């Protein structure tokens, strides 16, 4: 016990009407990488907010013991002073400031009250070397990628003499290469004696990097697994998270594929600002009724750009190409035109592009199809309520009422609201961009069932996903996209991760 750096003893935290944490006990050994897993809404982030002082002492019950002393943090500065630094999923960097300025933001190196820029940049360069970030310290944050920004956050933590580093979903927005680099860095920091807590949905990463995994479910700490000793598998973790053996992460289905419903021919799109850069390069593809078609590609391959340019030209300039629905050419120049022609697009970033978070569930669901609730020029609020409640039941949206504010829902439930919204426009073709991003295993399964149900109703479904197992698990046919072009098309029975990866990384000169 004396070797533990952190002990959270019997932590209980309640919100009005909800017990978010119920006597949770967490022990973190010095110098380990400790993973915390759990479904969305299980209480992981709440636990970390208690630890870092976001929820100050007095608003929870139980003890936080850090380095053998009971701590009573009343804000984040208190916990940072002890060497506990949390890096949130949404990075807290200022885009127009330099890397060095961001690293020392709030913690500036000063002589006689003035910032010593030479020393700042020099120290920043040292910290950047420790995290393996090869950039000029004076480069602005907005000019480096998300993966590098994540490294800046870690360098910032190091500047605060971090002892316990907490990372909330650090790889959610990163591509595979950046993720791998980040995980290496965590191992490296571990070698330097820095303890890490990592919250992640990506079980393969946890399997690769964690020494111990604590599973939280419904506000309870279910179990702590020693990854190496017990040779814990991903299936074992999933079992703990969902409280049941989940043999198949993807529901079984017998596809009934009908006639072609959508065909796109020679689709080209250019970058909206850099107008000479081609983003979607001569893509032709099709979807049939009842078919789930996947679009695979590494980040930046042009999948989202293709989908959004198709959906009412909502991305890009100088868009050319033809779209046919059931063999008849249709126009999709504006979003309302696209919707009227039976297209729907559920965005990859539901908080920024999908939902009005300050508005209730009902009004979010009805927004794209508001006209269908109108009679004599007025919206029928009661019919709208009824319809939204039907979706709440059929989609299993966990909320006391459809008058609940969407910003207060968990990621999985928000995603169900987004899907409800688009199902209610009664589309023939649904484009789902990263439909399960940032949501937990149990909710993912539910989303898959919904997708399959929509396909069974005869709709054509296009799924964009960065997770290859997901595409392989639910799609009937997969297009691989690289650098804006389709580089391969494979049927489910022929598809392997290796084959798709080969197509996805195919460079222009080589084909």
């Amino acid at each position, binding site marked *: 016990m004396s070797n533990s750096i952190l002990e959270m003893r019997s932590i209980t935290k309640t919100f009005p*009407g909800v017990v978010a944490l119920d006597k949770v006990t967490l022990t973190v050994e010095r110098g380990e990488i400790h993973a915390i897993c759990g479904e969305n*809404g299980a209480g992981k982030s709440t636990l970390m907010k208690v630890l870092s002082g976001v929820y100050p002492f007095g608003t929870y019950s139980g003890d936080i013991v850090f380095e053998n002393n009971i701590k009573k943090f009343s804000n984040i500065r208190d916990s940072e002073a002890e060497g506990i630094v949390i890096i949130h999923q949404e990075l807290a960097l200022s885009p127009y400031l330099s890397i060095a300025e961001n690293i020392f933001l709030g913690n500036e190196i000063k002589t006689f009250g003035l910032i010593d820029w030479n020393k700042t940049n020099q120290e920043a360069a040292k910290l950047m070397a420790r995290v393996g970030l090869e950039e000029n310290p004076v480069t602005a944050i907005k000019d480096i990628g998300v993966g590098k920004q994540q490294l800046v956050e870690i360098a910032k933590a190091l500047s605060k003499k971090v002892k316990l580093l907490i990372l909330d979903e650090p790889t959610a927005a990163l591509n595979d290469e950046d993720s791998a680099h980040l995980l290496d860095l965590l191992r490296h920091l571990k070698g330097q004696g820095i303890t890490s807590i990592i919250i992640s949905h990506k079980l393969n990463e946890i399997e690769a990097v964690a020494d111990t995994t604590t599973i939280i479910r419904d506000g309870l700490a279910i179990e702590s697994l020693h990854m190496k000793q017990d040779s814990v598998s991903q299936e074992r973790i999933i079992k703990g998270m969902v409280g049941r053996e989940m043999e198949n992460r993807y529901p079984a289905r017998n596809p009934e594929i009908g006639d072609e419903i959508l065909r796109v021919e020679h689709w080209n799109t250019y970058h909206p600002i850099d107008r000479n850069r081609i983003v979607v390069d001569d893509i032709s593809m099709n979807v049939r009724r009842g078919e789930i078609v996947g679009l695979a590609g590494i980040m930046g391959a042009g999948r989202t750009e293709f989908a959004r340019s198709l959906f009412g030209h909502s991305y890009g300039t100088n868009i050319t190409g033809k779209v046919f629905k059931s063999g008849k050419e249709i126009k999709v120049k504006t*979003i*309302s035109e696209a919707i009227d022609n039976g297209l729907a697009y559920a965005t990859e970033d539901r908080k*920024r592009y999908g939902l*009005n978070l300050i508005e209730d569930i009902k*009004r979010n669901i009805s927004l794209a199809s508001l006209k269908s609730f109108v009679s004599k020029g007025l919206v029928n609020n009661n019919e709208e*309520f009824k319809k939204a409640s039907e979706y709440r039941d059929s989609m299993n949206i966990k*909320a*006391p009422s459809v008058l609940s504010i969407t910003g207060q829902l968990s990621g999985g439930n928000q995603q169900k609201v987004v899907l409800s919204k688009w199902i209610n426009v009664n589309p023939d073709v649904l484009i789902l961009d990263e439909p399960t991003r940032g949501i937990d295993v149990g909710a993912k399964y539910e989303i898959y069932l919904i997708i399959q149900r929509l396909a069974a109703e005869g709709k054509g479904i296009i799924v964009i996903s960065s997770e290859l197992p997901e595409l392989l698990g639910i799609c009937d046919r997969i297009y691989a996209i690289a650098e804006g072009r389709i580089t391969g098309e494979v049927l489910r029975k022929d598809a392997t991760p290796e084959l798709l990866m080969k197509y996805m990384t195919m460079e222009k000169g080589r084909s």
Partner: protein
Amino acid sequence: MSAFIERGKGFFDSIGERLQGVNLRQNGIFLALIALVLFFAATTPNAASITPTNFSNLVVQNGYILVLAIGMVMVIIAGHIDLSVGSVAAFIGGVAGILTVRPLEQDGWDWLPALPWWAGIIGAILVGAIVGVWQGFWVAYVGIPAFIVTLAGMLLFRGMALLTLQNSNIGPFPDEFRAIGNGFLDKEKNFNTLIGFPIDYNLTALVVTVLGVVVLWIAVLRQRSGKIKYGQIVEPRTWFYIKNIILSAMVLYVGFQLSQANGIPITLIVLAVLIGAYTVVMNRTPFGRYIYAIGGNLHAAVLSGIDVRKVNFWLFVNMGALAALSGVLIAARMNSAVPKAGDGFELDAISSVFIGGAAVQGGVGTVTGSMIGGLIQGVLANGMNLNSVGIDIQMTIKGLVLLLAVAFDVWSKRRK
């Protein structure tokens, strides 16, 4: 992490669900308004603040700000602002003067016949809508922030007001025109004489007030029964009745007071119609819903197929028309169109909206809330005047009230 854990459903949930129907913020400022009225009733000499004449004055003195606030709350919910409305009101006052009084014959306007009062009002509002077309074009289709467009408009239309009025005043207006700002419904008590009702109370005012209360009850009861029929959570029954009985009593009291003065001001009728109509627009029409959606999350609104530019454009056209109506009310009340009219009114309208609970970031706000916000300011100014409080102290207090009202809003949100 504020997900709803289903098994945690218990005592707290039932209270939470019960409170859900009760809009604390809205009821809070409403109570603040009542408290303010009571405070001045107790402190003003001879209870001058609750005399029939004073109620009448309150309405006609604040009517033009409230009309501006209706348009302003819509603009603010969509995430914009309009700084030009005071200047537009002055400009339109001048336009109304030219249309109905026509004193500029010597300057080449002699081809223009003096229009009847109603055509003058319609014409003035149309010109206001054209002003809105101008501003809406720059905001919606060119994409210049409304702050800039309307800051420019503030100067531009003040200049236009000076140009139109040739740096002097136009007046007096025809009596019918004046009535909209200064007149009363059946001031001569013809209805009393007809029926033989005691002459102390204006019968028309009493009848209209009672009708108003009946309409209010029909509306709230229909809404409630509709919600219950569809299994929605409604306010607790006792709270619902208490609230609406208090509300009705207040309406009846005000009506009773007005009946002892000159009767119901025409301005009040205009306002009541506008408040009712715009409440419906904001809650029940796609246009109103789109305004909330745009203010709440612009990107999501665009991707939901909403023609954001069109909504923004019409928002400013609407604001222009309402600013014009406000200008007509001002001119009618002063019986003269003057270039300095409406100076600073945009700030009063904006304050009303924020005191009334709208969010600076957009997406939140109500027409009725803004009306209460406007009345709080009006009652405050009126009460302080009656207490002979100097303009220096008045401005200080007005500033603090705005700040504290918004601070209260921020605090109550943070507690959640």
